[in-house]
Every structure is written in structure tokens, then in C-alpha cells.
């Protein structure tokens, strides 16, 4: 079993429906205190899975003074880029060319490994000293995409390239098997070509010959669209006798033009005036977009016989395939590996994050793809106290008798059921103000196995995260002027630090309401737990996964005095000028979950 290291997860207040969308107002202080008290947060509730985050995942809005988790920020895309070539793609290109890299970045269709462009041509044997003319161009086409992991090569699907660059454009013109296909633009040009028109005119007389042509999706759509546009434009469209249905008929030009305008963005609206009542004929030729279904699947069955299951693509491989407009019509398609195509890399994004309430930016990365730095990043870790958990062994100090010995000494050791264990929670204050912390924990953990929890010191203050040197200087002042009220208090609070050395001698007694240890900007307190027994009675449901982990919900309420309204330097200067008048009380309250360890089964 994996060793469990103690952890702290914080529940973002956004998951509480009563606080959602409401900026925390420092004046209305007793907000949720009342209802929070009544309702203990259950870390095992299925919902909790979606609202608990490690401190590192959380951001903080300086204006709302509230924690922001990945669920309660609104994101804006700063940059689109290819993860393979790190090329930044302008968002205008995105609309025309799609969300994949259009350079030469491809993933293997078999194993999604990156593909490399390699020359297929066997290079002249270097052991042969002849052929000096070949040294001028060591790499010459044709080229193929190859995967260095699973040894797939695009030659397996019959695709090779003339040039080693702009593979994406070359691939768009190639069908699997190597036959070329016309892009939409080329097809348009072909239609204008008089020679092709003449050829079309003669072949249409023969009729059958052209229908064997397989239209891919893009071509078929283009053909159909052109055909119907012609039909609508043609005032003499054949009347096939369905005119009785009039405007409501499926074949009526008006309804068709309405449908077409939905798809093509209203380009047909102007032609509506010209259209007449009366049905139109349907497409009759491949050139008009008629595609016969291939119902004869014997070829596919034959291939399946030959290649077996190994020759077919897996669902993952099919899902990873990019949408391919050059693909054959649905009926002509089977599911063989030979029909997979290299996958152009999906573009990735860099996003900035905004507070959904006040719209301030709380995280903004550098726009340049290559840099991993952030311009703005308000991480929660620099605003709310971190909580570190350490098992506390009392065996050394329990000689006095009163306090009970702790079972868990090593981190990750199993907790003995029904035997009190102690944990040291260290709260570290990241802000430059002294904070007052109030903790609340249920006496028994929620869930099937109720362990008893006692927070020995639920109310305490943690000193400000002042400059280390500042601190040293003030130390001296405090001891000097111990007589004065403020200084004495400071000295009192800091004494723990000096006692550290002598702690081993006099022993830290577990005393209710007493801080275990304190330092410059941190305070350690003790939590006593009596783990529940995991014994199951007859008929009880078996132990669920991780049900043996002792998790205690802890309500943390932090209070401090901050500068009014402001977060930037200017404001703080102003506050100093006014001599502390602008200070106001701030508070933050949230649930967190302390995972202490596994209980022995």
C-alpha cells in the first residue's frame, strides 16, 4: 500500500452556493458564520471531490479578498500555439485553418508519438568512396513521416512527400494510397477550364462512366451546393408536378433557399426574389453531388479476413484522428489501420484568468510562447496561511505521566485504532500583517467511521511575515523596553522561540489553549485524534477505497487588519501618511481537509 503523506486540501468557497457570485464585503462580517456552524463540511461527500484543492492550485483576488479556484475563474485565451514547433498561431488563422498546426507537425496515428520527416531514399553507402556528386545533396526526396517509437511510416498508408517542408499542405492533397485529390480551390479552377467542360459534356452523354468517381465529403458538399445554387438561379427549373405543395414542399425552392441560407450565411437571400414556385429536380450526377452508397462490403470483409483484428484501428486511434474533409463518403469507409492518417498537432493555449466577480485579472502569462513566466499571478499561497502537518511523538516527553503516548511517529505510519495520536499543525503566515486564526473542527469526523478530533488550541495569532532583518532589530527593542505594554506583549509572544532549546528539558505539555511552538511568522498547534476502529459488523458494506484514510474537516477563519480598499504600493503609502486611519478589518473563512494518515485495518 502506498504510504500516505499528510496533506491539506482547501475547499474553495465558490462551491458553497450561498457565497457564489457575491463579493465578500468586509463590513458584513457575520455572513455565513451562522449557517457554517450548523453544517459540517464532509470531505467524503461526492461533491467534495470537485471543490478541494491543494493550496498551490488556488489563486486569490486582491479586490474581492477571496480565494479563487480553477472552477471560479473566467479564462481568456492569450495565445494559440503549436506544442511541437512552438509557433504562435494568430487567431485570425484559426478561423480559416482550424485548430491544428498547419506546418509540419504530426503525431503518429498508431501511438501518438511525434512524427519526423525522413528521406526514404537510400543514401549512398558511406563505405563506398565513390559518388562524390551525391555528397552535395545528402537528403533528397521522396520523404515520409516516420515514428521513431513504434516504427510506423507514412509509406505504410502509401503516402510520401516531395518536399520536406509544409507537409500539412502536401498531405491535404494526398489520399491514403498516394492518389492525389483536388483541393476545393483547384476544383473551382478546374470547372472554369474549358477543356474540362468539354470533357464533362462528352462524358455525361455516356452517363455511367462518371458515377464510379468517389466523391470525398468536401467535394460532395461543394458539388451539391453548386447544383442547388444553379437550380435556384435557374428560372426554368423543371416542374415535376409537386408544385401543389407550394412553398411548404420539401423540394420547393423557397424552403430550400431558406435552409441553404442557414448553412451558407444568407448568400442566397438575394436570389429569393428570382425563385419561383415549383419543385426542382434532385442531383443526378456525381458532378451535381450525387453519391451512390457502397453497399458491397465484400472488399472490407476480405481485408478483414487477411489482416485480422490487428489490421483494424482501435477506438482510441479513431478518436484521435483529425476530422478529414478529404475523407471518403461514409459508405466507402472502413476501419482499417491503413486508413488512418497522421494527426496534425492540436494547438494549445495560454490563458489569462479573471476574477468572475470584479473582472480583475488574477493570472496572466507572458504572451510569448517560449517564456513560462507570468506577468500577473496572484497565488493563494501568498495570501492565506499554509498548513503543514507533522505527526508528533510524545514518547520522549511523556515521562511526566499525564499526556498520552502517540502511536504515529514516522510520517506515513499507520494510525492505531482507538489510540490517541497527536499531530502538529504549523500555520505559516505569508502576509505582512498579524493574523488571528480561529479554527473549528467537528468533535467527530463525518462518515461511517467517526474518529474523535480535538483541536487543543483553536484560537491564536500568527505574527506578520516581516523582513528577517527587521525582525532581528525589533527583537532587540522589545527586550530593551519590556516594561511598556506593547513591547512586553511582543516579547511574551516571541518567547517560544527562545524556549526552543530548553524544550527538551521541561517538556512541552499538552495543554488546552496553549500554542505548542511559535516562530517569526508561524505557529504550531496540536490536534489530538482518536482514530475510529475500522471493524465491520456482519452485513456492513465492505470498506470503500480510501475509507481508511483519516480525514478531518477543519474550518479556518482568518482575521487581519489591512489597508483599506487598496492593494498596490500607492495605497499603502497613503495609509502610512494617514497614520493607520485607513486600516480596516479583513477576514477570510474556508473549510479545509487535513488528511492525517491511514488507520490500521
Amino acid at each position: 500500500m502506498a504510504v500516505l503523506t499528510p496533506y491539506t486540501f482547501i475547499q474553495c468557497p465558490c462551491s458553497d452556493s450561498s457565497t457564489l457570485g457575491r463579493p465578500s464585503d468586509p463590513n458584513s462580517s457575520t455572513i455565513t458564520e451562522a449557517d457554517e456552524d450548523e453544517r459540517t463540511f464532509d470531505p467524503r461527500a461526492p461533491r467534495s471531490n470537485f471543490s478541494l484543492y491543494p493550496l498551490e492550485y488556488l489563486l486569490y483576488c486582491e479586490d474581492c479578498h477571496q480565494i479563487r479556484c480553477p472552477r471560479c475563474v473566467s479564462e481568456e485565451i492569450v495565445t494559440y500555439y503549436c506544442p511541437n514547433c512552438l509557433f504562435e498561431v494568430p487567431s485570425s488563422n484559426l478561423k480559416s485553418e482550424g485548430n491544428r498546426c498547419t506546418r509540419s507537425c504530426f503525431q503518429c496515428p498508431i501511438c501518438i508519438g511525434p512524427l519526423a520527416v525522413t528521406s526514404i531514399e537510400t543514401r549512398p553507402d558511406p563505405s563506398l568512396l565513390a559518388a562524390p556528386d551525391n555528397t552535395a545533396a545528402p537528403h533528397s526526396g521522396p520523404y515520409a513521416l516516420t515514428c521513431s517509437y513504434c516504427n510506423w511510416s507514412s509509406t505504410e498508408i502509401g503516402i510520401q512527400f516531395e518536399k520536406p517542408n509544409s507537409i500539412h499542405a502536401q498531405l491535404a492533397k494526398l489520399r491514403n494510397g498516394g492518389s492525389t485529390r483536388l483541393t476545393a480551390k483547384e476544383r473551382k479552377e478546374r470547372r472554369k477550364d474549358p477543356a474540362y467542360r468539354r470533357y464533362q459534356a462528352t462524358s455525361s452523354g455516356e452517363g455511367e462512366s462518371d458515377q464510379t468517381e468517389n466523391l470525398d465529403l468536401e467535394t460532395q458538399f461543394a458539388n451539391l451546393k453548386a447544383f442547388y445554387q444553379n437550380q435556384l438561379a435557374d428560372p426554368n427549373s423543371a416542374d415535376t408536378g409537386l408544385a401543389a405543395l407550394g412553398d411548404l414542399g420539401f423540394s420547393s425552392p423557397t424552403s430550400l433557399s431558406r435552409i441553404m441560407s442557414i448553412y451558407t450565411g444568407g448568400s442566397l437571400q438575394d436570389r429569393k426574389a428570382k425563385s419561383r414556385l415549383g419543385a426542382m429536380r434532385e442531383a443526378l450526377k456525381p458532378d451535381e453531388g450525387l453519391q451512390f452508397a457502397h453497399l458491397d462490403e465484400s472488399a472490407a470483409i476480405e481485408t478483414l479476413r487477411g489482416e485480422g483484428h490487428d489490421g483494424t484501428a482501435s477506438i482510441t486511434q479513431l478518436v484521435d484522428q483529425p476530422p478529414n474533409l478529404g475523407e471518403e463518403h461514409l459508405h466507402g469507409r472502413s476501419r482499417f489501420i491503413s486508413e488512418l492518417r497522421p494527426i496534425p498537432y492540436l494547438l494549445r493555449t495560454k490563458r489569462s484568468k479573471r476574477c468572475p466577480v470584479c473582472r480583475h485579472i488574477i493570472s496572466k502569462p507572458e504572451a510569448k510562447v517560449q517564456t513560462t513566466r507570468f506577468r500577473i499571478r496572484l497565488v493563494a499561497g501568498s495570501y492565506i496561511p499554509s498548513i503543514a502537518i507533522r505527526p508528533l511523538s510524545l514518547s520522549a516527553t511523556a515521562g511526566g505521566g499525564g499526556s498520552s503516548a502517540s502511536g504515529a511517529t514516522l510520517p506515513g505510519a499507520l494510525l492505531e485504532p482507538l489510540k490517541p495520536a497527536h499531530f502538529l499543525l504549523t500555520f505559516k503566515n505569508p502576509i505582512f500583517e498579524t493574523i488571528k486564526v480561529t479554527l473549528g473542527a467537528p468533535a467527530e469526523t463525518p462518515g461511517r467511521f467517526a474518529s474523535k478530533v480535538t483541536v487543543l488550541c483553536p484560537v491564536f495569532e500568527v505574527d506578520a511575515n516581516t523582513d528577517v532583518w527587521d525582525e532581528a532589530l525589533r527583537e532587540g527593542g522589545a527586550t530593551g523596553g519590556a516594561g511598556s505594554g506593547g513591547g512586553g506583549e511582543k516579547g511574551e509572544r516571541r518567547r517560544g522561540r527562545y524556549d526552543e532549546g530548553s524544550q527538551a528539558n521541561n517538556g512541552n505539555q499538552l495543554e488546552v489553549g496553549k500554542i505548542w511552538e511559535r516562530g517569526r511568522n508561524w505557529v504550531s498547534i496540536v490536534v489530538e485524534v482518536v482514530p475510529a476502529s475500522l471493524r465491520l459488523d456482519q452485513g456492513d458494506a465492505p470498506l470503500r477505497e480510501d475509507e481508511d484514510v483519516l480525514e478531518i474537516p477543519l474550518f479556518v477563519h482568518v482575521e487581519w487588519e489591512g489597508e483599506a480598499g487598496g492593494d498596490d504600493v500607492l495605497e499603502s503609502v497613503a495609509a502610512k501618511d494617514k497614520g493607520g486611519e485607513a486600516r480596516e478589518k479583513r477576514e477570510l473563512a474556508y473549510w479545509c481537509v487535513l488528511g492525517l494518515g491511514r488507520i490500521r485495518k
Partner: protein
Amino acid sequence: MSSKRHSILPPAPSGPKPPVHFSSSITIADSAVLTGTHSIAIHGESVVHPRARLDSLAGRITVGRRCVVHERATLGAVGVSGRVAESGAAVTLADYVTVEVGAAVEAGDTVIGEGTVVGVGAKVGAGAVIGKHCTLTPHTEIAAGEVLPDYTVVYSNGMRRTDKRGMAELKNKGLARQIDVLRRIIPSNPGKFA
């Protein structure tokens, strides 16, 4: 096992010193480890990297021509099956075989075909017969006694496919060039094992 670590210092020859048959053109590092009781034969132009381990306790070990046995690779370890060679040949590498860093080929009539690459940290079980020009990607495990057809690629936790690139010749040439470089880099000391 495959994760067996050796000290950084040249290890003191542990166990019996096996009889060796070396071609004059091989490159074998001073700190390679050759132990066992059966003979170890290494043919022309093959390279054995420092700290590679060849163990002939379970039977004969044969390394073909132009093979490369990388650092901390193990040939002839007695696997969990405890199987030893019935025919007397523990491990046979054909020509142009690469056994990558930390890979292990267990003893017991194990055969690796020409041009095959045993990837980093891969494990070939006792008695497995690997075909020609196969690729075992890193950390692949081939079960004991398994038979792989020629040109098989084993990848991604045991998925199989056939290499259709037809690059076998090219790969062999590449290996030959690599060996040319290695011979210049690795100081050879075949005399130590004689």
C-alpha cells in the same frame, strides 16, 4: 533482476571466471563484468560497454557480429522461472543486435534475432525467441518462452505491430557506423578476461 545496480568502482570479479572466445576485432570495456562457468563467445566487431554484465552460470553465451551491449545491460541472468539452458546455450544474440542500457536478457535458450533492438530497461524472459529486426521499445517485457515473429514492434505496454518500413539494411549500416565511433571512444581490454 533488471534493476540490479553495480558500484561505480570497477567491481571485483565476483564468482568464477568463465572461459571466453573473443574475436580479435571486438571492443570490450575494462569494467564489463563476465562471470559464470560456461563459455562466453563474442564475435567480430561487437562492442561491450562498461558495466555490462554477461553471466554464463546457466549456460553458454554467444554474442554475434556487430552487436552492441550497453551499460548495465545483463545477458544470462537467471530469471524468476529459474530456468537454465537445456541445450547448453543460455543466451544467443545473432548479428547486429543492440541490447540497450539496463535491459536484461534472461538465461535459458533465449535467442535474439538479427538486427533486433532490445530497448532501454526492457526484459526478455527465459526461453523467448525474438525474430529478426524486431524492436522492443523501452521497458517492454517479453514473457518467458514467447516467440516473436520477424519485424515485430512491441510498444506501449505490450502492443504489437509489424515494422513495414523495410529499413533493416539501413539500420544495420547505421549500427556499423555507431560501432566505428564506439571503438574509438571505449578503451578495449579483452586481455583482462582471457
